[in-house]
């Protein structure tokens, strides 16, 4: 399974509206991680309606994400867009072995230039960021695909 984009976005599938203008968006799967609806098949069916059937929506726990990524039952390399509910969900997934080179995060404000991370993230979230960065995963701010990736704010 090839991860084409990993994003933290509390809007979960709503984020796909923003990402719709991204060429990467034509993925085989959209994995939503950390949603409270992961065990309700009817709600999963309704959420699948957000996207055409050619893009399968998977609502997964962190453990479920790892099982899903490790499955290898298709001769073709499938592509997946992973949307995490929050940083705690990313941290838990990373703890379970999830790895990507970088993770996208929408700008927390309308202004494209965050000043300090502590202005926007709680102490707990900052610890999560630090832990994830410690696993050689970079963060960057980017709300829509046509904005430049801002890695700098996470390196201060």
């Amino acid at each position: 399974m090839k991860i084409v984009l990993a994003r933290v976005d509390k809007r979960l599938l709503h984020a796909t509206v923003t990402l719709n203008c991204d060429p990467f968006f034509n993925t085989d799967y959209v994995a939503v991680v950390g949603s409270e609806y992961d065990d309700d098949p009817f709600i999963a069916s309704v959420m699948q309606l957000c996207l055409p059937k050619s893009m399968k929506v998977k609502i997964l726990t962190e453990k479920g994400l790892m099982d899903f990524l490790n499955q290898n039952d298709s001769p073709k390399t499938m592509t997946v867009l992973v949307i995490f509910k929050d940083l705690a969900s990313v941290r838990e997934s990373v703890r379970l072995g999830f790895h990507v080179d970088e993770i996208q995060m929408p700008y927390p404000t309308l202004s494209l230039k965050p000043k300090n991370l502590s202005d926007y993230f709680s102490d707990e979230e900052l610890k999560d960021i630090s832990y994830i960065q410690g696993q050689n995963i970079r963060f960057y701010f980017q709300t829509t695909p046509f904005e430049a990736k801002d890695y700098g704010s996470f390196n201060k």
Partner: protein
Amino acid sequence: MIIDSVFKEFINVVRENKNYTIGLLNGEGDVVDCSDENLIGTHRDINNSDIHNLFYPVKAKNFDYGYLWLSGNDENLSLMGNLISDSLNIRLTYEITQSTLKQNITEDDKLVKLLLDEESFDMDRILGLIEEMGFDQSRSRIAIYIVNEQGFDNRKIAKLKLMPDGEDNLCSLLSRYALLIFKAVPDNLENQQMKNYVGKFLKMLKDLDVAGDGYWIGSVQKKLRNYKQSYRHCLWLKDNEKENRERTVWFMDFLYDYFMSEISLGDVKDVFDYYHDFGKDTDMDELIQIADSLLSNNFNISQTAESLYLHKNTLVYKLKKYEELFHIDIRGDFKGRFLFILISASMKEYRKRRRVGEEV
């Protein structure tokens, strides 16, 4: 309409759960589609929600599609209503975007085809299409020709229209492997400014995974009629430039070569053939090398001699011989220099043909 087919999918899913009835109402509250077909055509008061009947506006991309109605006795009705309403609006936005992109790129294809038509320039059809598309013809544009040997993904090309100023660009896949973009550019940019501007655009394309094995940039044009020329300049660059993998080649860097290529070198050879016959002993390769070196050193004799590892007097001696042979003034007269370069170009052509065994 998009809403009809999308809502059918919602109905099919909601029917799996007997707790809920889902309906689509028009602006007046009439049920136009419903998971319970018996209720189609009945009326609902959209201003009177209660614990068993919820109404949500259906709106996407500033277009009102009426109201979503969710009915049931379930305690989670409100939660489900929000979820279904969100899903419906997201899905509609997605489908409308996809449909718009498809339509945009089809219109771009049509316009590009008309603009590049070899037979004629159908002004009426072009103006009609431009008006239909809302295309701004007052902008200056530059042709960008990109080739990808693996083939382009047309879904990604369609989404180029969503880039900043994407509406002002014309994008068309001429084949699976060749993409032509007429990129809108600001007026009056100097050469380097233009390179920076277009360079940023190309970088953005690469970031969007629309990369090519080669990039050829034509001339800037203001008139629609001349867009074809800008495209032809790209093709000329592609046909006449050497290896350029991953390289961007700019037509404006090759103006001299382009105009030289437009001159009939056969004519030049014929004109000087008579003199050439007298100088059978002339070393053609040496003449070409000297002419190239003079050109790259701006006809500075000392620098040219140095670059050729010749003594200055030796070079002057050789130039004098050419001057006598062809009856031109290479060292003092601009016209003479120009003619000498033409003679050299015609000899290059002659040499090339002889190498491939042509009778010359």
